[in-house]
């Protein structure tokens, strides 16, 4: 996982509530056993029609937004299934952060775990950013250290769990962190009640 400090880039506005993981990456693309290569299928059913033709006015298909790095969307983003394929596909498409008024829990955890920065701003701030993003020339800057989001005529700060921030800022591997406590895990196991099932 790469360390994150400052992200600057174009925004792609997707002002919808409850964007679910089935919309982010439909099930027919979950059959792959590889970790990468999900980007082309991002929002597939909004991006392509039933004949597989590109829907040109979908935001991510507009050439003006081809360089987008920050997705700006509505509340409860990433609701639904636990598929990590959802943040993988967003990341694989070139995004480094998602800004929304709220995120679904599992999706949010998955983002932190893969190093895709989830940024929570207020409804009002997200609405203003969405407007600013209507001009594809307007860039946004997210500073993780300072916890700020800035764009032309826009300045906001955001909260983030301090430990999540620490991990993102240093690109830390959770498993390595847990294995530092291998002794504690082993000692917990030695006291586990015998009536608990094991196969």
């Amino acid at each position, binding site marked *: 996982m790469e360390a994150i400090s400052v992200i600057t880039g174009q925004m792609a506005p997707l*002002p*919808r*509530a*409850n964007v*679910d993981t*089935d*919309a982010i990456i*439909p*099930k*027919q693309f*979950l*059959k*792959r*056993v*590889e*970790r990468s290569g999900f980007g082309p299928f991002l929002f597939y*059913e909004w991006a392509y029609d*039933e004949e597989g033709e590109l829907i040109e006015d979908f935001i991510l298909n507009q050439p003006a937004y081809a360089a987008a790095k920050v997705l700006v969307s*509505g*509340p*409860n983003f990433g*609701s*639904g*299934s*636990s*598929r*990590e394929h959802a*943040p993988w596909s967003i990341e694989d498409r070139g995004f480094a952060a998602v800004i929304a008024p*709220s995120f*679904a*829990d*599992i999706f949010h*955890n*998955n983002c932190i*775990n*893969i190093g895709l920065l989830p940024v929570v701003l207020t409804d009002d701030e997200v609405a203003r950013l969405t407007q600013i993003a209507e001009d594809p020339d307007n860039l946004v800057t997210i500073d993780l250290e300072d916890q700020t989001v800035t764009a032309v005529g826009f300045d906001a700060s955001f909260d983030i*769990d*301090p*430990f999540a921030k620490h991990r993102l800022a240093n690109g830390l591997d*959770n*498993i390595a*962190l*847990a*294995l530092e*406590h*291998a002794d*504690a*895990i082993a000692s*917990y*196991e030695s006291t*586990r*009640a*015998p*009536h*608990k*099932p*094991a*196969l």
Partner: protein
Amino acid sequence: MTAPRTMYEKIWTDHVVRDGGGNEPDLLYIDLHLVHEVTSPQAFEALELTNRKVRRPDLTLATVDHGVPTEGRALGIKDPLSKKQIETLVDNCRNNGIELYDISDIRQGIVHVIGPEQGITQPGMTIVCGDSHTSTHGAFGALAFGIGTSEVEHVLATQSLPQSRPKSMAVNVNGELATGVTAKDVILGIITRIGVAGGTGYVIEYRGTAIVALSMAGRMTICNMSIEAGARAGMIAPDETTFEYLRGRNQAPTGDDWDTAVEYWKSLPSDPGATFDIEIDIDAAELAPYVSWGTNPAQTVSVTGAVPSPTEFDDPLERDAAERALVYMDLEAGTPIEEIPVDRIFLGSCTNGRIEDLRVGAKLLEGKTIHPDVHAMVVPGSGLVKLQAEEEGLDIIFKNAGFEWREPGCSMCLGMNPDILMPGERCASTSNRNFEGRQGRNGRTHLVSPEMAVAAAVAGHFVDVREWK
């Protein structure tokens, strides 16, 4: 005297391997890790790349469910990608010593059906799976939640997971449910009231006389859909109903261990006076059979109601969502729910694919045939559910009525296998999600109880099962 604690606090505390001290997440021990073919291959691959081993294969159980075909299994799996994904799980389980209920195993089935069925889902446990409906297992008084693939890898490697403490919510459902109002209607009613994000950041404990009166199957249906309200987990206190369900199951404790276990299980329910961050009260008598009309599970009304107008929603994003939903669902505001015709019926899934669901469906269906324009199928939740149903002759009732009788799996709940809706088809489904495209591109899903699905199959449109004969 310690302060009164909720069940969730007790289970959490019992599993802390390392206290994060508030600045860091706690490291929680995981008692059971359920694994399926879709969310695990990248985790196993990453383990291999980092030279890490599966720490506790004996606390890990795998099955194939999402991508398996539900007919023509003797011919093998036609879809080459699904085939490879399933073979990958077979290899990973063999290489790591993990027990797998493979496609030819009678115990194979939906991951959230097999755990309880085998008695390996027990009160007081922490249970995870790379699947959001892991909340199902909370029906036993376990702390059970869905995780992503990075976390699957984490649990495989360490049998533990760093977790920040969610908040607690009590949903109290008191009173008696009317005949024809089921556990499915209770949870749809709850989601409609608190919204699809109402539970975000919370563990919900369902309480009250209407919950206590439910069978384990009903309790599982409720906990299953906790995630549809955005909750981290859902749980119900274990009681005699729970113990009776578990007694004698394959993996349930026996002899002295059983007594010790029951004693421990009895210590789990929330103490009197324990406080929750939020409490919500619902009068069971106010609940009705529900039908979802939109593209999220909170877009649901009573069967006696009508499709709402977007103008009824104050919030602009909600209004916009309702507008989009009506277009997608091809419905007009004001249409009575009972006038909506259906093309397909899906009876199955981890929400309503258990033997009890099949029994109520078959009972209602006896002596009837489905509407000629309807295509209906039953997909049992597991091989053992299917076997039991066949022993009881339920398959005959379904088949005589015109239903297809399939092999176990997730099937049209998400349509990763060949069971999908065609564009424009409208389905009464006992599953849990009515998202756009969930059951097939441009397919239209209406979430209902098994009773409501069967009645719609016969009538060809939704009917109020309370008055249906």
